[in-house]
């Protein structure tokens, strides 16, 4: 069963990747913009999934880190720095700020932590809006250049979509490796039972801060890609509702599932677009859809799949047991 399942999974994965590369080739400008946005938001949601889904630390500040990354990239690239350098700075900056934001998590948990991070999110927004010497204030920063990758200009939508997709691939691989490393297991131990994790010798203090810092750094990467994607940024997209949206993406997709953020970002970015034919009703329908989904399955979309697979596995296992038992009986 499993020997057949694995090649199938790999084939499915390759088909999806090939589809993501080939199909958008004849998309129009807007379609490519939406898909690029999906890739960027997937990166940010993946970061939050590390913090929330794997390490169990509620954060309502991921949008602020996307903002930090976006402003870092916008300020640096408009001053002539190349994008990779800006991404590096965005990572370092978000990592450092995320580390500091992790300190409250050492003292308070759950809803209190949610409120601290919520307050941080609002403070970050105020800084973006008010420090106009740095961020351009409410007028924002315009004419953000898109990068040259290996000498190729990515000004057109399609090449830049590949930049976003490539970054998503790199980040996905890194996260895949991370959650399978001892660190990932430590994160999960932290979520499941912090006390037991500590008594097993896991430095819970360090891993809590790490969970915040790494998750935030991914938010920073997403922001550093968002700035050249839209080529203009102002404080509005990075207000609290982005943090809430990202949290919604993670929960709707399935917190603690590797593919959750991809699905969640797809629903949050694409579903409103598909519903656009309903005109003014689309956000309302989106809200209703999210509520219905959560009532049906609070663990998100992948929670449904997980339950279904678990059921099938138990059925298959009991069938195998029955066969083995009857064989044993015939031998005797």
């Amino acid at each position, binding site marked *: 069963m499993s020997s057949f399942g694995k090649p199938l999974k790999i084939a499915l994965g390759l088909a999806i990747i090939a589809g993501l590369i080939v199909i958008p080739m004849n998309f129009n400008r807007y379609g490519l913009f939406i898909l690029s946005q999906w890739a960027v938001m997937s990166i940010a949601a993946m970061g939050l999934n590390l913090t929330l889904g794997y390490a169990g630390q509620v954060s309502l500040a991921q949008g602020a880190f996307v903002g930090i990354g976006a402003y870092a990239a916008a300020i640096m690239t408009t001053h002539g720095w190349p994008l990779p350098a800006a991404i590096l700075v965005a990572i370092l900056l978000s990592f450092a700020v995320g580390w500091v934001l992790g300190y409250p998590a050492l003292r308070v948990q759950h809803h209190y932590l949610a*409120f601290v991070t919520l307050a941080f999110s609002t403070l970050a927004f*105020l800084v973006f809006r008010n420090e106009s010497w740095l961020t351009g204030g409410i007028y924002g920063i315009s004419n953000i250049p898109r990068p040259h990758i290996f000498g190729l200009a990515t000004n057109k939508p399609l090449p830049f979509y590949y930049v976003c997709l490539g970054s998503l691939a790199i980040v996905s691989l890194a996260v895949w490796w991370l959650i399978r490393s001892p660190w990932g297991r430590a994160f999960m131990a932290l979520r499941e039972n912090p006390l037991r994790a500590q008594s097993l010798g896991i430095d819970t203090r360090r891993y809590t801060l790490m969970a915040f810092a790494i998750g935030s750094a991914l938010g920073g990467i997403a922001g550093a890609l968002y700035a050249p994607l839209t080529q203009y940024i102002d404080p509005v997209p990075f207000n*609290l509702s982005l943090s*809430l949206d990202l949290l919604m993406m993670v929960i709707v997709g399935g917190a603690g599932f590797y593919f959750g953020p991809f699905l969640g970002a797809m629903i949050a970015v694409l579903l409103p677009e598909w519903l656009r034919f309903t005109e003014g009703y689309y956000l309302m329908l989106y*809200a209703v859809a999210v*509520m219905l989904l*959560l*009532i049906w399955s609070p663990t998100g979309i992948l929670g449904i799949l997980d339950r279904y697979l678990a059921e099938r596995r138990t059925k298959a296992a009991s069938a195998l047991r029955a066969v083995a038992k009857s064989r044993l009986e015939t031998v005797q």
Partner: protein
Amino acid sequence: MSNLFDLLVAGLATGAIYALVAVGFTLLWQTSQTINFAQGEFVMLPAFLMLAAMHAGAPFWLAIILGILLSMILLGLGFKLLLVDPMMRHGVLPLAIATMALAIGIKEAVKQFFSAEASPFPSVVPTGDISILGHAVSLQSIGVLVVAILAVVGLTTLLNRTSLGHQMQAAAQNPTVARIIGVPVERMILLTFLINAFLVALASLLITPIYLAKFSSGEVLGQAAFIAAIVGGFNQVRGAIAGGLLIGVLDNLAAAYVSTQYRAAVPMMFLIAVILFRPQGLLGRAEERTV
């Protein structure tokens, strides 16, 4: 000096409204572990219900009654039966996320079915100024303060002096034991949802004449109520009242003396400080942690 006095009165008036909203917020938390991210939208909606009734030709007093009744049905009964009940057993976070979606839904519905523009709203209190200790104080501030204080006193009397209130507190503090001694816990929880809906409708009636009726006005209000509830103590009704008044005054003073740009930052910093150094809130009791 007269400036400070005016600021204090205005701050107390907004603070009293925050307190109403924050009290409802803590009630829901205590009885059903609901963190209602749509609380701000809950305050925004009743004003539109009242406006809709007035557009349909109802006089103002009737529109108020209809608005309060409708909001108790929609935001009390409907909210509990349709969203909270099916989700409560799944834990705090999924329900909190669902209320975020609900907030989007309410906002968009008002924008779509009513208007994206701000609408004026008649005041229950006559406008004008009266003179207190030689200061001109707007009647509106006084009226808001009086109504809010009456509501809060009424609520605390209900909670602390009546059998019904004691049953509600028992249901909130320990549902299992409450059930054993015969408290109809389910009905008590429903009652807190209805009280919350009544309080937000009242807050809506008081605040909308000042800030106009707009679909997006819930965001700021919801956050203020949030902060008030946590600063005062998440598990205490009187904490929420103190928190509301404090945040209202702080907000007004910050706008005058710190900077208008960073006025919103002051309550937030205060919130962070309170959570870090006194997480149970200024008046709250420490919650027992379960491991």
